C-alpha cells in the first residue's frame, strides 16, 4: 500500500474518533455503562483466578502472580482490539441490512471504512486497567525492568491485536460467502478466552489448536513469556508479531476476495 494512503486512513481514524467523542459526550451515561460492564467482565475473570488460588498454590507450575500477569497482558491486547476491530454485528448490519453498498462507495479501503464506523474507544479503558494489573504483578514477581521492555511490549501487543483482527476479519468476511454465520462469532469468543490462561495446562490437542490453528495463545501467554523470567521462551514470544502478520494477511486476503464476490443483499 502506498504510504500517503496509509496516512490518509489514519487521518480518517482521527476524525472518526473525534466524532465518536462528540456523540458520546452527549450520551455520557452510555460511555460509562460500557466501561463499567467491560471492567466487570474482567473483574469476574480475575476473581476466578483469585478464588482458585485460594485453594492451590500453583496452576501447573504457574504462580498466582504469573497467571495474573498473563491476564493483564491479555486485557491490554483485548482492549486495543475491541476499540478498533469491533466487527460483532458485521453480518447483520452490513450484509443483511445492506449497508455494505454504501461502504463500497467510500474512498477509503472497505475494511478500513467498516472499522472506522465501529470504533469503540471505551474499550481502551480495559487496556489501561490491564496495564496496571500487569505492572502490579511485575512488581510482585520482582521482575527486572530493562529499557527495551516497553518497546517490546508495544510490538507484542501489536502482534496480538493483529492476530485477533486477522481471525475476526476472516470470520466477518465469511458473511460475504454464506448467509448467517452468526453462531461462529460467539464460538470464537469462547475459544479466545482460553488464551488468557497458560496454555501449558491444557492437553496436547488443545495446546496445538491454540498455538497453530487458532493462535489465541499468542494473545496472552506466549508474549508474556518474554517478560516472565521463570517461563522465559524468547522464541515463542517473538513468534507473536510473526503470527500476527500472517493472521492479518490471511484476514485481509479473505476480505478482499469476499468484497469482490459481494453482490448486495438485493433488498
Amino acid at each position: 500500500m502506498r504510504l500517503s494512503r496509509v496516512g490518509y486512513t489514519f487521518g480518517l481514524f482521527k476524525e472518526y474518533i473525534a466524532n465518536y467523542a462528540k456523540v458520546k459526550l452527549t450520551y455520557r451515561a452510555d460511555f460509562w455503562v460500557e466501561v463499567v460492564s467491560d471492567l466487570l467482565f474482567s473483574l469476574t475473570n480475575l476473581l476466578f483466578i483469585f478464588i482458585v488460588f485460594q485453594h492451590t498454590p500453583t496452576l501447573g507450575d504457574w504462580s498466582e502472580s504469573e497467571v495474573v500477569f498473563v491476564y493483564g497482558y491479555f486485557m491490554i491486547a483485548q482492549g486495543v482490539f475491541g476499540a478498533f476491530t469491533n466487527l460483532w454485528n458485521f453480518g447483520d448490519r452490513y450484509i443483511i441490512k445492506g449497508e455494505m453498498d454504501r461502504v463500497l462507495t467510500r474512498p477509503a479501503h472497505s475494511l478500513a471504512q467498516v472499522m472506522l464506523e465501529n470504533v469503540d474507544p471505551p474499550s481502551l479503558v480495559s487496556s489501561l486497567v490491564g496495564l496496571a494489573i500487569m505492572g502490579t504483578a511485575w512488581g510482585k514477581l520482582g521482575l527486572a525492568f530493562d529499557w527495551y521492555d516497553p518497546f517490546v511490549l508495544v510490538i507484542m501487543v501489536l502482534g496480538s491485536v493483529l492476530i485477533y483482527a486477522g481471525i475476526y476479519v476472516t470470520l466477518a468476511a465469511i458473511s460475504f460467502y454464506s448467509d448467517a454465520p452468526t453462531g461462529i462469532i460467539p464460538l470464537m469468543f469462547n475459544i479466545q478466552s482460553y488464551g488468557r490462561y497458560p496454555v501449558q495446562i491444557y492437553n496436547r490437542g488443545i495446546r496445538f489448536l491454540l498455538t497453530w490453528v487458532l493462535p489465541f495463545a499468542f494473545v496472552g501467554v506466549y508474549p508474556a513469556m518474554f517478560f516472565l523470567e521463570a517461563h522465559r521462551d524468547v522464541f515463542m514470544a517473538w513468534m507473536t508479531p510473526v503470527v500476527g502478520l500472517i493472521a492479518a494477511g490471511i484476514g485481509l486476503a479473505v476480505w478482499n476476495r469476499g468484497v469482490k464476490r459481494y453482490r448486495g443483499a438485493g433488498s
Partner: protein
Amino acid sequence: MNAAYFEFIRIRFLTMLAYRVNYYSGIIVYAINIGAYYFLWKAIYGDADTLAGFTVEQMTTYVAVSWMARAFYFNNLDREISNEIRDGGVAVQMTRPINYLMVKMMQGFGEGVFRLLLFMVPGMILATLLFHVTLPTDPMRWIVFFIMIWFSFLINTQFNILTGLFAFFVENNEGLMRMKRVSVDLLSGVIVPIAFFPAWGRAAMDWLPFQAITYLPSSVFTGRTSEAETWHALLIQIGWFAVLVVPIVLMWRSARRRLFVQGG
C-alpha cells in the same frame, strides 16, 4: 388459550431447528467450554484429592452438568424484550389477547427444550465417555434434578425479563444486560462452584438468588447433598421464584403506563 402458548413453544423449537449452523457451532461451544474447564480444573487440582469438599470426579461431573444445565436455562429473552421495546414491537404485542411476558417465557422454554434434547442429552453422553463423569444411580435424584433445572430456567428467565423490561425505563440497557450475563455466570456457580468462594462470599451468596440457577441443581446432581439438603435446595428455588414474580409484576404494570417508543 393454553393451546396458543403451546404453539409458541413449538414454533420456537422449530425455528431453532432451522438454524443448523447455530446448532452445530453451539455444540462446539459447549464442548470447548467443558473441555477447557476440565483441563483447567485438573491443573488446579494437581496432586490434591479434594478441594473445598469436591473430589476430582465430583468436580468433573459438576463442570459437565453445570454447562449442560446452562444449555437448558440459557436464553436471550433480555435482548429480545429490550429490542421489541425499543423498536415498538411490544405495542403490537400488547394489543393481542395473550400475556406478552408469558409468550416470551414460552419462547424461551421452546429454546430450552430444543437445547435439552439436542445439546444436553448428546453432550452428556459424550462427556461421560470422554471424562470421568459419575452419573447418579438413584432415580429420585434424576427426577429432583429435572425439577430443579426447570426452576433454574424459571429463575434465570425472570432475571432476563427484569433486565429486558428495564428498556422501558432507560434508553439504553445494553450495559445492564452485559453486566447481568457476566454476574449470572460467576455468581450462579457455572464458572466456579460457590463452595470455593471465601467464607464471606458464601455467606453473601446464601442471601442472593443466583445460586438457585446453577449451584443448587448441580450440587444435587453430583450427589454432594443429603436428602434433607436436597429438599431444602428445591425449597430455596421455589422461594426465589415466588419472590421474583413480585418485581416483574410491578415493573410490567408501571411499564405499560409509560411506554414510549424511540423513533416510533
